[in-house]
């Protein structure tokens, strides 16, 4: 579906409002109010009749939840289906709009959780950490760490939000092809591998080289492996206090 001048402006409003998708996250409807808030400019534009507008608003107050960034694809598709429904195009219906949201929410959330929270976020953190440690002697250059991480993360984040709305609207459900494509998977796998390389770099540089003590050379990697093993069984908070206690004992007798 083509985007004409007026509708492009409305989709830009949807894009801006999508940043508040989770402002009123609730256990009852999850992101439903946020979704309505984001799609509101489309509904106000398409449904001038008050009764029809009420129906449109109410159908978006059904339960809805997905990954907040990837939700843009669903917003784009919903805007398209709302327009088709408002224009009376054959096959368009309120049920189609509601069902599309319900069907797409789960798979999109799974993708977002594993790729955005599971890869991009730790990758950005790894980049920040490596830059901070490299420039740890110069406080001014240390600011590059959070700055670079911010740019890396938001390049993917904002691009996904904007592109999601535009391709969701223009391509409909075919837009998901670009999300789940092999190219996208390869990109995330590349970041994951690069992340692991960065961690090994940090470990070798940070701990093995600073210590001349043989017991420390053995203790640090051993503790790393113990932590990797234990973190599947214990919470991050418990492990933090455990690390402080073990580090305290080691620091008492081996310095």
């Amino acid at each position, binding site marked *: 579906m083509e985007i004409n001048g007026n509708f492009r402006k409305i989709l830009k409003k949807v894009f801006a409002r999508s940043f508040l998708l989770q402002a009123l996250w609730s256990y009852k409807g999850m992101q439903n109010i946020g979704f309505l808030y984001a799609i509101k400019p489309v509904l106000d534009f398409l449904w001038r009749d008050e009764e029809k507008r009420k129906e449109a608003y109410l159908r978006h107050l059904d339960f809805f939840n997905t990954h907040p960034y990837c939700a843009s694809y669903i917003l784009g598709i919903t805007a398209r289906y709302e327009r088709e429904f408002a224009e009376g195009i054959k096959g368009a219906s309120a049920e189609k709009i509601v069902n599309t949201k319900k069907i797409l929410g789960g798979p999109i959330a799974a993708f977002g959780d594993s790729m955005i929270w599971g890869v991009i976020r730790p990758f950005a953190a790894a980049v920040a950490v490596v830059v901070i440690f490299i420039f740890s002697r110069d406080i001014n250059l240390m600011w590059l760490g959070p700055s670079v991480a911010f740019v890396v993360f938001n390049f993917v*984040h904002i691009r996904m939000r904007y592109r999601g709305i535009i391709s969701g609207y223009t391509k409909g459900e075919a837009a998901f092809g670009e999300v789940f494509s092999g190219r996208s998977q390869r990109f995330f796998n590349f970041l994951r591998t690069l992340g692991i390389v960065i961690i090994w770099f940090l470990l070798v540089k940070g701990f093995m080289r600073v210590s001349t003590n043989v017991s420390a050379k053995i203790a640090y990697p051993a503790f790393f492996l113990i932590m990797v093993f234990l973190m599947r069984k214990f919470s991050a908070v418990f492990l*933090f206090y455990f690390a402080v206690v073990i580090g305290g004992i080691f620091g008492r007798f081996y310095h």
Partner: protein
Amino acid sequence: MTQIFLAAALVGVLSSDTITIGQFMFSRPVVVGPLVGLVFGNPYIGFIVGVCVELIWIRVIPVGVSVPPDSAITAAVSAAAGSYAMGKFGVDVYSAIIVSLSFAIPCGILFKMAEIKIRHRNSLLVDKIKASVAAGRFDRTDFYTAVAVVRIFAVSFVFFIAAFFAATQIPSCCWHIFEILGISSKIAMRFVYILCFAQLFESFIKWK
């Protein structure tokens, strides 16, 4: 006092990014820590605290209904408390970091409980908004969304001030615990770093 209010306002703005507005990563500890540290005149401690908090909870992700501990508040309280202790009690940087983190982590968990409470209150709004829409008041969605933004700012602002005040009540002997026990805080800190890197390493492996 101005410094504390300035830091609290900053935390209020940055904390809104966690869930309410955008999720641009302003609220990540690696950003919040240095900024709060800068307000208290010690960005270095903010960087180290930011890195630690970022990595300790890197594997904890907000899937579905789960609410992770608030890492932005944890980093902010830790950076502020650590800077305060270094200035007032003259403790070394690593002791300040470890003790302030030990205090701030429960604060992050407490804030998570506040967040859960907010989400329960939001559930009541779903019916209110439905009733407003049925009555033809379409602008109520915008109004309640604006209220949510102001509310998270206010909650973070007040929480930070309360937590910082509590941190200032920690006695001097707690900040000097490593010195009193004859422990090298630098070596103890390395174990915290190892935990952080193990978490980061595991986060890349976990999703395979």
